[in-house]
Protein backbone atom coordinates (compact mmCIF):
# COMPACT_ATOMS: atom_id res chain seq x y z
CA UNK A 1 0.00 0.00 0.00
CA UNK A 2 1.78 3.11 -1.29
CA UNK A 3 0.70 5.88 1.08
CA UNK A 4 2.86 8.52 -0.63
CA UNK A 5 2.99 8.61 -4.41
CA UNK A 6 5.04 10.54 -6.89
CA UNK A 7 3.42 9.64 -10.18
CA UNK A 8 5.96 11.29 -12.45
CA UNK A 9 9.21 9.28 -12.54
CA UNK A 10 11.01 12.06 -14.40
CA UNK A 11 10.77 15.72 -15.36
CA UNK A 12 12.87 17.78 -17.74
CA UNK A 13 12.90 21.60 -17.73
CA UNK A 14 14.99 24.37 -19.24
CA UNK A 15 17.34 26.37 -17.07
CA UNK A 16 15.64 29.50 -15.72
CA UNK A 17 12.14 28.05 -15.99
CA UNK A 18 9.94 26.75 -13.20
CA UNK A 19 10.13 23.10 -12.07
CA UNK A 20 7.01 21.68 -10.45
CA UNK A 21 7.24 18.33 -8.70
CA UNK A 22 4.06 16.70 -7.46
CA UNK A 23 3.21 14.31 -4.64
CA UNK A 24 -0.06 12.69 -3.53
CA UNK A 25 -0.82 10.97 -0.24
CA UNK A 26 -3.61 8.76 1.00
CA UNK A 27 -3.21 8.75 4.80
CA UNK A 28 -5.20 11.63 6.31
CA UNK A 29 -3.22 11.24 9.56
CA UNK A 30 -0.12 12.72 7.93
CA UNK A 31 0.44 16.23 9.27
CA UNK A 32 4.01 17.05 8.31
CA UNK A 33 5.56 16.83 4.88
CA UNK A 34 9.14 17.12 3.65
CA UNK A 35 11.06 17.23 0.41
CA UNK A 36 14.51 15.70 0.08
CA UNK A 37 16.94 15.94 -2.84
CA UNK A 38 19.33 13.12 -3.68
CA UNK A 39 22.41 13.20 -5.88
CA UNK A 40 24.03 9.92 -7.03
CA UNK A 41 26.32 8.37 -4.41
CA UNK A 42 25.01 10.72 -1.72
CA UNK A 43 22.29 10.43 0.90
CA UNK A 44 19.06 12.42 0.66
CA UNK A 45 19.47 16.08 1.63
CA UNK A 46 16.65 17.89 3.43
CA UNK A 47 15.23 20.74 1.32
CA UNK A 48 12.05 22.13 2.79
CA UNK A 49 9.09 21.08 4.91
CA UNK A 50 5.53 22.12 5.65
CA UNK A 51 3.14 21.52 8.49
CA UNK A 52 -0.49 20.72 7.77
CA UNK A 53 -1.56 23.94 9.48
CA UNK A 54 -0.04 25.86 6.58
CA UNK A 55 -0.70 25.78 2.85
CA UNK A 56 2.57 27.31 1.69
CA UNK A 57 6.17 27.50 2.82
CA UNK A 58 8.94 29.33 1.02
CA UNK A 59 12.72 29.11 1.26
CA UNK A 60 14.63 30.99 -1.39
CA UNK A 61 13.99 29.42 -4.79
CA UNK A 62 11.98 26.57 -3.24
CA UNK A 63 8.28 26.75 -2.35
CA UNK A 64 6.11 23.91 -1.14
CA UNK A 65 2.33 24.07 -1.51
CA UNK A 66 -0.05 21.83 0.43
CA UNK A 67 -3.66 21.14 -0.57
CA UNK A 68 -5.10 19.07 2.28
CA UNK A 69 -8.50 18.57 0.73
CA UNK A 70 -6.88 17.05 -2.36
CA UNK A 71 -4.18 15.29 -0.31
CA UNK A 72 -1.65 16.81 -2.67
CA UNK A 73 1.57 18.74 -2.30
CA UNK A 74 3.93 20.24 -4.80
CA UNK A 75 7.46 21.63 -4.84
CA UNK A 76 8.16 24.63 -7.03
CA UNK A 77 11.72 25.57 -7.97
CA UNK A 78 12.12 29.01 -9.50
CA UNK A 79 14.33 29.63 -11.36
CA UNK A 80 15.61 26.13 -12.07
CA UNK A 81 19.37 25.68 -12.30
CA UNK A 82 21.44 22.80 -13.76
CA UNK A 83 22.69 22.04 -10.21
CA UNK A 84 19.10 21.22 -9.25
CA UNK A 85 19.28 18.08 -11.40
CA UNK A 86 18.75 15.24 -8.92
CA UNK A 87 16.15 12.80 -7.61
CA UNK A 88 13.51 14.50 -5.45
CA UNK A 89 11.66 12.57 -2.77
CA UNK A 90 8.49 13.62 -1.07
CA UNK A 91 8.07 12.28 2.49
CA UNK A 92 5.32 12.42 5.09
CA UNK A 93 5.00 11.78 8.79
CA UNK A 94 2.48 12.35 11.57
CA UNK A 95 2.63 14.08 14.90
CA UNK A 96 1.54 11.09 16.95
CA UNK A 97 4.56 9.25 15.57
CA UNK A 98 7.07 10.73 17.97
CA UNK A 99 9.87 8.99 16.10
CA UNK A 100 9.19 11.07 13.01
CA UNK A 101 9.05 7.88 10.95
CA UNK A 102 9.15 9.07 7.34
CA UNK A 103 7.04 7.54 4.57
CA UNK A 104 8.67 8.28 1.22
CA UNK A 105 7.38 8.43 -2.33
CA UNK A 106 9.21 6.69 -5.15
CA UNK A 107 11.04 9.82 -6.25
CA UNK A 108 11.05 12.04 -9.34
CA UNK A 109 14.22 12.56 -11.37
CA UNK A 110 14.57 16.21 -12.35
CA UNK A 111 16.82 17.20 -15.23
CA UNK A 112 17.49 20.89 -15.76
CA UNK A 113 18.96 21.56 -19.19
CA UNK A 114 21.36 24.48 -19.70
Amino acid sequence: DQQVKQNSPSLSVQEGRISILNCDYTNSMFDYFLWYKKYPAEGPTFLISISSIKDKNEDGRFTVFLNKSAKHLSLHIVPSQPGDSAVYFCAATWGSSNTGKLIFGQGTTLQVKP
Partner: protein
Amino acid sequence: DAGVTQSPTHLIKTRGQQVTLRCSPKSGHDTVSWYQQALGQGPQFIFQYYEEEERQRGNFPDRFSGHQFPNYSSELNVNALLLGDSALYLCASSLVAGGFTDTQYFGPGTRLTVL
Protein backbone atom coordinates in the same frame (compact mmCIF):
# COMPACT_ATOMS: atom_id res chain seq x y z
CA ASP B 1 30.70 20.15 11.61
CA ALA B 2 30.78 16.47 10.65
CA GLY B 3 27.62 15.18 9.08
CA VAL B 4 26.26 11.66 9.24
CA THR B 5 28.87 9.07 8.30
CA GLN B 6 28.37 5.44 7.33
CA SER B 7 30.69 2.51 6.78
CA PRO B 8 31.44 0.64 4.70
CA THR B 9 30.53 2.37 1.43
CA HIS B 10 29.99 -0.86 -0.47
CA LEU B 11 29.66 -4.47 0.62
CA ILE B 12 29.23 -7.75 -1.24
CA LYS B 13 27.92 -10.80 0.60
CA THR B 14 26.48 -14.18 -0.34
CA ARG B 15 23.11 -15.59 0.60
CA GLY B 16 22.89 -16.85 4.17
CA GLN B 17 25.70 -14.66 5.45
CA GLN B 18 25.41 -11.98 8.10
CA VAL B 19 26.33 -8.30 7.73
CA THR B 20 26.91 -5.34 10.05
CA LEU B 21 26.60 -1.75 8.90
CA ARG B 22 27.73 1.23 10.95
CA CYS B 23 26.56 4.80 11.38
CA SER B 24 27.85 7.83 13.25
CA PRO B 25 25.26 10.56 13.74
CA LYS B 26 25.71 14.25 13.07
CA SER B 27 27.32 16.12 15.95
CA GLY B 28 24.73 16.99 18.58
CA HIS B 29 22.21 14.38 17.44
CA ASP B 30 21.06 11.59 19.75
CA THR B 31 18.78 9.51 17.53
CA VAL B 32 19.50 7.20 14.63
CA SER B 33 17.01 5.83 12.13
CA TRP B 34 17.74 3.22 9.49
CA TYR B 35 16.10 3.02 6.06
CA GLN B 36 16.36 0.56 3.19
CA GLN B 37 16.20 1.91 -0.35
CA ALA B 38 15.66 -0.65 -3.10
CA LEU B 39 16.50 0.29 -6.67
CA GLY B 40 13.96 2.72 -8.12
CA GLN B 41 12.08 3.06 -4.83
CA GLY B 42 11.97 5.54 -1.99
CA PRO B 43 13.61 4.73 1.34
CA GLN B 44 11.65 2.46 3.70
CA PHE B 45 11.85 2.84 7.49
CA ILE B 46 13.49 -0.11 9.25
CA PHE B 47 13.74 1.13 12.84
CA GLN B 48 14.86 3.97 15.08
CA TYR B 49 17.17 3.96 18.07
CA TYR B 50 17.08 6.47 20.91
CA GLU B 51 18.68 6.19 24.35
CA GLU B 52 20.17 2.86 23.24
CA GLU B 53 16.75 1.30 22.72
CA GLU B 54 14.66 0.51 19.65
CA ARG B 55 11.95 3.14 19.67
CA GLN B 56 9.89 2.12 16.67
CA ARG B 57 10.12 -0.59 14.04
CA GLY B 58 8.93 -0.72 10.46
CA ASN B 59 7.65 -3.75 8.58
CA PHE B 60 10.91 -5.72 8.52
CA PRO B 61 11.57 -9.26 9.77
CA ASP B 62 13.53 -10.10 12.90
CA ARG B 63 16.56 -10.86 10.73
CA PHE B 64 17.07 -7.10 10.88
CA SER B 65 18.35 -5.95 14.25
CA GLY B 66 20.24 -2.99 15.55
CA HIS B 67 22.11 -1.45 18.39
CA GLN B 68 22.91 2.04 19.62
CA PHE B 69 26.02 2.80 21.66
CA PRO B 70 26.44 5.36 24.47
CA ASN B 71 28.12 7.75 22.00
CA TYR B 72 24.90 7.58 19.89
CA SER B 73 26.52 5.68 17.01
CA SER B 74 24.56 2.73 15.73
CA GLU B 75 24.86 -0.61 13.97
CA LEU B 76 22.42 -2.41 11.68
CA ASN B 77 22.75 -6.19 11.56
CA VAL B 78 21.12 -8.40 8.98
CA ASN B 79 21.22 -12.19 9.43
CA ALA B 80 20.59 -14.95 6.90
CA LEU B 81 20.91 -12.62 3.94
CA LEU B 82 18.53 -13.00 1.02
CA LEU B 83 18.96 -11.78 -2.54
CA GLY B 84 16.13 -9.31 -1.85
CA ASP B 85 18.20 -7.63 0.86
CA SER B 86 20.35 -6.05 -1.85
CA ALA B 87 19.74 -2.32 -1.46
CA LEU B 88 21.15 0.98 -0.32
CA TYR B 89 20.99 1.22 3.48
CA LEU B 90 20.63 4.75 4.75
CA CYS B 91 21.20 6.03 8.24
CA ALA B 92 19.54 9.25 9.37
CA SER B 93 20.27 11.14 12.56
CA SER B 94 18.13 13.62 14.43
CA LEU B 95 17.54 15.19 17.80
CA VAL B 96 14.67 14.37 20.10
CA ALA B 97 13.11 17.52 21.55
CA GLY B 98 10.11 17.41 23.82
CA GLY B 99 9.75 13.72 23.10
CA PHE B 100 9.48 14.29 19.36
CA THR B 101 12.04 13.68 16.63
CA ASP B 102 13.28 16.72 14.73
CA THR B 103 14.30 16.81 11.05
CA GLN B 104 16.29 13.76 9.97
CA TYR B 105 19.63 14.18 8.19
CA PHE B 106 20.89 11.32 6.06
CA GLY B 107 24.28 9.77 5.53
CA PRO B 108 25.60 8.68 2.11
CA GLY B 109 24.47 5.10 2.61
CA THR B 110 25.99 1.63 2.35
CA ARG B 111 25.37 -0.25 -0.89
CA LEU B 112 24.82 -3.93 -0.03
CA THR B 113 24.88 -6.52 -2.78
CA VAL B 114 23.84 -10.09 -1.96
CA LEU B 115 24.92 -12.74 -4.48
